[in-house]
Structure formats: C-alpha cells, structure tokens
C-alpha cells in the first residue's frame, strides 16, 4: 500500500517522462510505480489522459468536471496502486476507477439536488461550433442534447461503442455483462437516442 511519502511527490515534482518510459508497456509502468517510481504515473497519464478526458466529456459535456474526474482517477490509481494485480491490463483498471468516480459524482449531485438532466440537455453542445455553419451547429447541439437526455447507462454504451470504438467484448468486460447483452443495450440506446432526437427536432420546428 502506498505510504503518504510515496505518493506525495506527484504533487510537488515536475512530471517528466524519461526516455526509458517510452518503451515500457502500461503494465510494466504500473509495476515500476508499485516499486516506488511514482513518476511512471506521469507517463501513463500522458498516454491515456486525453482519451479518458474525451470519454468523460462525452458523458457529462463539462470540461472542468471531466478534467477533475480524470485527474482524480489518476490520483486514486496512485493511492490504490496496491489493488492493481499482476496479469491484468492497466486501461480497463483506470477506466473502472474513472467510471466509479463518475457514478459517485452523479449520485452525490442527485442526492444534493444539484444535478439536472434537463439543464445538462439544455446546455449540451452549446459553444462547440461557434464558427461552423449554423445548420450544422444546430444539428450538433440537438444531437448532444438528445445524448444528454439518455440515462447514463445508455449514454455510456454509446460512448464506448461509437466514440471509443471499443469491441463489444471489451465493453462487456467493462460493464460486467456478456457480448450479447452489450448488443442489446446498444440497440436500445440507439433507439432511445433516435426518439429523443426526434422529440427535440419536433419541438424545435414547432
């Protein structure tokens, strides 16, 4: 288990990626982190940070929140490095940490009455395409708004399958279900998206 002094340098020192890290696999880096070379986490962040951010952003469409969640996920990965097991892959592990953080965040916000899907849907996609053509911008906003209206589980399966382009088997492993179940969920999510999109489109035209 990481001691305080083991993980604190992360917040003090500059994070460099020595050349020796470039050739190492994620899992080798994790082993080095576990052996006390906490700087290895900086290289892991460099490799995965942005992709995790994009996943998060598509889930909540909020830059600050997504950045915070990803950074917190890496801080937790460092704090709970002992739970990373030999023979497992780093990426699903860090995703799981991030997903847990995200779920906790939503649960807390809902509990505090601070999170409003309607608000998120209303804000969704705004300001993204300020310079793009108006029609395209509207379509983008509408599609993001429809996405934001889906329950988190449906949104997640779409984000993982479409934006992340992950194979169904991998998504199944992440969500704790079989490949067949992923396909069913995906299809239902797409159908819900279609219905939400239509509703928004109708509302806009009227």
């Amino acid at each position, binding site marked *: 288990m990481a001691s*305080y002094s083991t993980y604190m340098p992360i917040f003090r020192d500059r994070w460099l990626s020595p050349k020796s890290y470039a050739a190492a696999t994620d899992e080798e880096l994790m082993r080095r982190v576990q052996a006390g070379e906490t700087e290895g986490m900086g290289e892991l962040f460099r490799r995965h940070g942005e992709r995790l951010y994009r996943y998060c952003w598509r889930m909540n469409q909020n830059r600050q929140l997504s950045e915070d969640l990803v950074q917190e996920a890496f801080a937790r990965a460092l704090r709970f490095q002992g739970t990373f097991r030999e023979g497992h892959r780093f990426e699903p592990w860090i995703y799981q940490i991030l997903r847990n953080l995200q779920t906790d965040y939503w649960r807390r916000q809902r509990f505090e009455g601070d999170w409003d899907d309607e608000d998120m849907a209303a804000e969704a996609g705004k300001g993204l395409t300020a310079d793009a053509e108006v029609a395209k911008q509207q379509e983008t906003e509408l599609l993001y708004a429809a996405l934001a209206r889906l329950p988190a589980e449906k949104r997640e399966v779409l984000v993982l399958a479409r934006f992340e382009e992950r194979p169904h088997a991998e998504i199944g492993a992440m969500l704790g279900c079989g490949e067949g179940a992923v396909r069913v969920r995906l299809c239902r999510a797409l*159908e819900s998206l279609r219905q939400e999109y239509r509703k928004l489109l109708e509302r806009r035209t009227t």
Partner: protein
Amino acid sequence: MKESEFCAYGERSLPAYLDGSLEAEAARTFAGHVAGCAVCREQVKLWDRLAALPVEPPSETFRQGLPGMARRTVARPLVSDRVAAWGMAAMLALLAGTGGYWLGAREGAQQVALVKKDVEHLRGLVAVGLLQQPSAVDRLRGVNYTARLSAADEGVVEALLTTLRTDGSVDVRLAALEALRQYEGRPRVRQEVSKALRREDSPMVQMVLLETLAAWRERSAEVELAALVADEAVEQGVRERARQLLAQWREKLEGLGLRQ
C-alpha cells in the same frame, strides 16, 4: 419504445451490422432492410452522425500532465461567497505583498513555489477557522474546503481528527471522515480512525468507519471491532458488519499461516 416503431430484425442485427461483424451475405440482406425500414434507417444515420460530433478540447493545464493536478476536488466548492471573498482578499493581499519582490526576482519559479505554499497555508487556516464555527453548515464547508488543499499540514489533519472525535453533527463527522480518507498513509490518522469506532454512537458513522477500515485493511483495529461486536447496545447491522470484517481478516491471516 412505441410498438409501431419497434423493429425486431433491427434489434437482432443492427449492432453487428454497425461494427462490421455481420457476414457479407447477412450484411447485404440487412442493408436492403435498412433501405426500407424507417426506424433502422434513422438509427444508422444517427450512428454515422455521432462519429462526427466534436469534443471540447481539454485545457492547456490538463495537457501539460500531472503537475497541473494540484488535487483539485471533484466536488463543487462549498465555501460560501462571503468566506471565499474573505479568503480571496487575504490571498490577493499576500500576493500583492510578495508580488513586487516576486516580479523582480530572477529565480521566478522558486518564488512562485513560495507564494503557492503561502496561499496553501492560508487556505489551511481558512479551513481550520471554518471547522471551529458554531454553525454545522460552516463546519461542513470547512471540511469540504480541506479537500481542496494539495497537501494539508498537520494542523488541518488534526482539526479534521478533532472534528471526527467531537463534532456534534453526524453529517459533519461523516464529511470529516471522508476527507480523512485521503490521509490513509499517515499512521496517526489510521490509529485515530480506529479509535473513533469506540467513541462513535451513530450507526451511520460507525458503518462508514468500518468500511474505511476495511478499505485500508487496518487490522490493528481488531480490538475495537471485537468491542463493537460484544457491545449489545450497538445497532445489529453494525455489529454484523464488524463480525464479518473480523472473520474476513482472521480467515486471511489463517490462510497465510499467521494465526493458529
């Protein structure tokens, strides 16, 4: 899903069609179906459009990597505007005071680090000040404020431990415990959290204490756990969880051949 808009064929084949895993013949047949089925056609269209959706890029600080992650908290700031304004004014005064020297100094990076440290110290003071307020809401804010510190000093950690030990509000004690979780590497924190179990009388806090100790695998808390199990005044569910945890730990030790 409306009955009229449901497409069973689509539900069966669409995901495989979209990810290209349908066999050539099946894919051709399904493509023919898509052309004639409004539901499937719209879904395929949406699927294509989704790929083109832009993402707001992350900030420069984020891109620079982990140095920028000065432990920003996930929770929204809970400090009231008044307190935040006071803290901000104090920080600005401090920055202005050191600014002249700072700007003139050649070794800028070192000065920035010093100023940051001072600001951090000041934040710590604000947090401790809040923890001593008579209002539970203010104390709760104080606890949440500590989570924003990159590295809380001894004073802040002690204030949190005192809050956990003595605060009259269950909510504040729970929040203090949550904030203390990040200091699991400090032996004193682990010890005090174990001890808190003995004093705590709220079943809710007792449960969270148990879960914290379980997550930390704090086996030195065995005595406290045993006391809890034996105490008939303690809520049944709490005793059961303590019993479970104790059994788990003992089983593990036995498995390792460390206990007869």
